[in-house]
């Protein structure tokens, strides 16, 4: 049996003080239903990716709450959590519910409301995706964890500060045309290297923002999906784990969970890295995108910067990455994995804000924590 995405919807990403987690989720879900041309009664189950509503807004038990909010009672609802990879995890669980024969049409949402807290509180909440007893407890933040990887990588492979800045420069350029993006302005290498230091060597413009937002997709089994005009088919996926603590890892310059997840996804899809027409990668901090090029097989180990400098990962290049702006569009952590899938669906439908010409196959790479969870999903325009 095959599964396809048949509807997508998302909110704007950003500091959306006037809207609650419930409001944002309802908005994204309603847009996905409209896009699919379906009604609420067609949805058989709901899966929602969310990292930490319990700490961000003091609310747990989101599955049932969102079902109630969407007026979809009494369908079953499941909340999925794997830090910043919660969205892709929810997609996988929804996928399995169809592949197992339990459901035919399922909604998958991802949502996070992060700006009700102060920056210090939000940073502490995000740090709980690291090892609370051994990393967060000494004051290590997420920017700090990626900064530790950045310095290690830069010294090992000779990546310069200016070269690293090309990641946010590219993604800001892509986000200019994205109506949902939190930031829509161009930046230069000078802007990046002169922005405030957050955690050496990472500066403000290397970091994804603290955001509110929600995204939703509707997926369906083959029989139903074939009735839609432009279904986007899931063709392969992988999910792997690593130590939650960064210090527990064998490598500090790659994410072994991402390498493993990609290997499984490529094998299941029967495609190779060179077959991918565009990718959404988890660029929570700029170093993460360069490591992702290598972990996903787009560039050999240590050569990710050459792919970046060549311009091939820009729109118009041979291998466009983060065509919607990546996590520079905002990073409401639970929503990100679904937002990535939405961009791939738009690209494969030929209706993206930065359209890749004749895009047939897209890949999404969603990472939780500093690399403890990695989920890679591959989609195709054809295959139904």
């Amino acid at each position, binding site marked *: 049996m095959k599964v396809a995405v048949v509807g997508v919807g998302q909110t704007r990403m950003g500091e959306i003080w006037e809207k609650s987690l419930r409001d944002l989720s309802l908005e994204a879900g309603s847009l996905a239903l409209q896009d699919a041309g379906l009604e609420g009664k067609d949805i058989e189950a709901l899966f929602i990716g969310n990292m930490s509503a319990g700490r961000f807004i003091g609310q747990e038990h989101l599955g049932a709450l969102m079902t109630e909010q969407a007026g979809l009672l009494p369908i079953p609802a499941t909340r999925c959590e794997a830090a910043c990879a919660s969205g892709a995890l929810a997609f996988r669980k929804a996928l399995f519910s169809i592949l197992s024969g339990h459901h035919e049409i399922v909604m998958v949402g991802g949502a996070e409301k992060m700006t009700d807290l*102060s*920056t*210090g*509180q939000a*940073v*502490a*909440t995000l*740090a*709980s995706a690291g090892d*609370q*007893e*051994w*990393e*967060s*407890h*000494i*004051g*290590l*933040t997420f*920017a*700090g964890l990626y*900064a*530790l*990887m950045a*310095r*290690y990588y830069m*010294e090992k492979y000779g990546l310069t500060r200016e070269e690293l800045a090309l990641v946010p420069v590219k993604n800001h350029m892509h986000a200019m045309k994205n109506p949902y993006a939190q930031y829509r302005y161009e930046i230069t290498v000078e802007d990046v290297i002169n922005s*405030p*230091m*957050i*955690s*050496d*060597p*990472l500066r403000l413009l290397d970091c994804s923002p603290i955001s509110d937002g929600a995204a939703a997709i509707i997926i369906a089994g083959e029989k139903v999906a074939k009735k839609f005009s432009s279904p986007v088919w899931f063709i392969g996926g992988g999910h792997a784990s690593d130590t939650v*603590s*960064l*210090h*527990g890892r064998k490598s*500090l310059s790659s994410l072994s969970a991402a390498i493993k997840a990609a290997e499984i996804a490529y094998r299941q899809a029967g495609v190779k890295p060179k077959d991918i027409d565009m990718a959404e990668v988890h660029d929570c901090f700029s170093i993460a995108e360069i490591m992702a090029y290598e972990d996903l097989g787009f560039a050999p180990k240590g050569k990710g910067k050459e792919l970046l400098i060549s311009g091939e990962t820009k729109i118009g290049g041979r291998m466009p990455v983060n065509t919607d702006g990546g996590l520079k569009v905002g990073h409401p952590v639970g929503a990100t994995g679904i937002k990535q899938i939405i961009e791939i669906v738009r690209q494969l439908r030929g209706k993206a804000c930065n359209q890749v010409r004749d895009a047939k196959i897209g890949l999404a790479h969603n990472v939780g924590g500093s690399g403890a969870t990695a989920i890679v999903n591959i989609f195709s325009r054809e295959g139904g």
Partner: protein
Amino acid sequence: MHTSSVPLYWRLQKSKYGLFGTKCLSCNTHFYPPKPLCSECRRKGRVVEHQFSGKGKILTFTIIRTAPEGFEKQAPYAIGIIELDEGAKIAGQIVGPFERLATGKRVRPVFRKIYEDSDDGIIHYGMKFVIDGKS
């Protein structure tokens, strides 16, 4: 906001204050923080307590300038990943002037205050690292 409660911290006191970890007698892998199970040897492993010297070298480091709640008054502060001489790696704060920070430098442990829960809350202690005088 920080969730390191008194009982949680009390449980970790021995390993945090005395650098007690574990090692597997079957494959000689050392674990700090302590792990009760050797993932390589699994049921064939023989995991026993091991006290680390805390001496090691800096593999990578950063200076935290935007701190989480509870650490704002300490910022900026340096954190490194230290490779202990026995082979285990640990994240720890590195005290001393930032100018001396460099990868590869030798460090030794020092007992320090980690943070205070609040003005009238408990004080959390533990190990930080200091760069060896010679290096």
